């Protein structure tokens, strides 16, 4: 039995369809990443699958129980961490965790042990008497995670848990997720960071409410039709703009100080790029053909959606 399953899950707000005919399946013990730009419908999908929002049509199941008809029954199986910090700022770390332990009815004998375990896992033990409102962003997220884990759920839903958190905490957060996965906890995590998506076992790419790709990161990258040319220029931003202007139909992405270009023929496109930027007195510092990242794939998908060349086969 799959941990999470959705069939034609749809949510409409008036004329807007936030989630459109979403179908997916997540196996037990998997870390599944839901990625997509802001407004793609990630949060709504999370809310539908946790049973805290009713779908307009379709259905979802958590361990075989419907999120619509049995939304109460699934609550003991799931841990949910909403996108906004959902804990009490005026309560201490320990008070917040204890509150959720009581709410979930964690047996008192196991309670203290479980709390110690979670404080250790999240490295929050030294801060256990600090008010949640005085924690840093990263610590708040770890506290949120601890509260969502207090009842040892089988499935964990995390809505953009690392949004706005510094890279060090993000890395620590993912270390914790892997540790949970080893304990057979299924993790369903949404993120706007594609480097995080690469860490997932499988990834679903959500765009305007539709799931347009769903596979392992490696397989998703294979969907890319062509190669990725990585170019370094004296002024990457200006160069990217020039290249986009020159070839509006192709997919050109800016990655820090590098420009990624999707190409069928690296040699020809490299020469052309060189001549385009030379007109504006920009210098091509280096170039190489690289393995595509998820970001390259998604940029090309969005490009295709906007009417460009078909990157997908």
């Amino acid at each position: 039995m799959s941990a999470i399953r959705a069939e034609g899950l749809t949510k409409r707000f008036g004329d807007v369809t936030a989630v459109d005919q979403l179908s997916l399946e997540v196996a037990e013990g998997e870390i599944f990443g839901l990625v997509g730009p802001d407004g793609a419908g990630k949060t709504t999908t999370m809310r539908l699958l946790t049973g805290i929002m009713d779908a307009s049509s379709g259905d979802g199941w958590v361990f075989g129980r419907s999120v619509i008809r049995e939304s109460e029954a699934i609550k003991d199986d799931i841990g949910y961490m909403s996108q906004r910090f959902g804990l009490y700022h005026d309560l201490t770390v320990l008070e917040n965790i204890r509150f959720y332990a009581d709410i979930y009815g964690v047996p008192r004998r196991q309670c203290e042990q479980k709390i110690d375990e979670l404080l250790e896992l999240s490295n929050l033990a030294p801060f256990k008497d600090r008010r949640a409102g005085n924690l840093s962003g990263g610590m708040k997220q770890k506290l949120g995670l601890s509260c969502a884990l207090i009842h040892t759920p089988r499935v964990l839903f995390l809505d953009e848990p690392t949004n706005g958190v510094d890279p060090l905490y993000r890395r620590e957060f993912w270390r914790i997720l892997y540790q949970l996965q080893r304990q057979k906890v299924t993790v369903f995590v949404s993120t706007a960071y594609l480097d995080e998506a690469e860490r997932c076992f499988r990834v679903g790419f959500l765009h305007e409410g539709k799931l347009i790709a769903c596979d392992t990161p490696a397989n998703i990258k294979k969907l890319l039709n062509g190669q990725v040319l990585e170019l370094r220029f004296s002024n990457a931003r200006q160069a990217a703009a020039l290249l986009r202007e020159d070839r509006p139909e192709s997919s050109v992405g800016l990655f820090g100080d590098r420009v990624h270009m999707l190409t069928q023929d690296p040699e020809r496109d490299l020469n052309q790029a060189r001549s385009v930027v030379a007109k504006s007195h920009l210098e091509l510092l280096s170039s190489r053909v690289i393995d595509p990242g998820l970001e390259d794939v998604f940029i090309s998908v969005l490009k295709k959606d906007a009417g460009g060349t078909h990157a997908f086969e």
Partner: protein
Amino acid sequence: MNLRRLAAVAKKECLHILRDPRSLYISIALPMMLLLLYGYALTLDVDRVPMVIWDQSETTESRELISRFTGSRYFTAQSFVSSYKEIEHSIDTRQALAALIIPTEFAQLLGGGEPTPVQLIVDGTDANTATLALGYAQVVALIYSQEIILQKVRQLRGQVLTVPLDVRARAWFNPDLESKNYIIPGLIAVIMMVISALLTSLTVAREWETGTMEQLISTPVKGPELITGKLIPYIFLGLLDVLLAVLMGEYLFHVPLRGNVALLFTMATVFLAGSMSLGMMISIVTKSQMVASQAAIVVTFLPSFLLSGFIFAISNMPTVIQWGTYLIPARYFITLLKGIYLKGIGLEVLALEAVLLVLFGVIVVLLANYKFKRKLV
């Protein structure tokens, strides 16, 4: 209803209250302030009406009449004047609310047994005070006239006459007819109605606004556990307020508490449960602290003030409005409080009010639970 979850919610809510100075201020300082303010300002007694006197007669008889006025506790002589212009000025500037004018021929007319005119002017802009002042003045004048007649009869016939009717009026439960004695118990009800609804109107809305509700509804906690758990600490807080108000009534306003204190607090608990559930329901429906607190004040303050029989007698209202007053819980609580406070009566008389108060509480609690949905829309 799971007791552990209920206790967890109640405990958490206690911590919120204790750690938020704003909620403590609203719940303790505000009601005390209101009680002081209204307790002292809202008096319907007309006492020591400032009066200017124009004594044109300046005789023993006129001075006797003046002393009858100033000797009563209802009038004080503000000043003596000698023209209508001065009287007008005094009343315009509100230095005086009444003026007494005794004509030059006062003593002669009185001595001659003629009807003797005396003029009394009152400031009619305050109709309530004016009516009362006129009434007092007439009584003062009447008693004085009566004494003069009796004296004359004695002189003529040499025998002591008595007034045929001797009305001995007694105001039961409030012998001195002090308005504070019925205003303070009513005021406690009105203030508690507003404060309790205001306090709870913030709780559920705050959880929606800060996003903690989204987290909560993903857990197995049930609506009734959440609502009841939130109510419990607030009811204790409300009872603390009632205790403080009763103490203020006793030691500051000296309102006699003749009835059973335990009954008073039992009824207060029932009343608080109802009004706090009302606040909670407003919070649940509006989901916004701003809107909820405004709505809570509007829904509770004016109806409790105007339509509860607090100051204005319900029996004087148009029938339709009289029916409307049954919807206002303060109406029952005020009747209960006045009964317990002043009459010292118990449930043997007040059973109907008590039952209706319980009924109100039950209906509002059920409605609040019905309105609370553990779903995002």
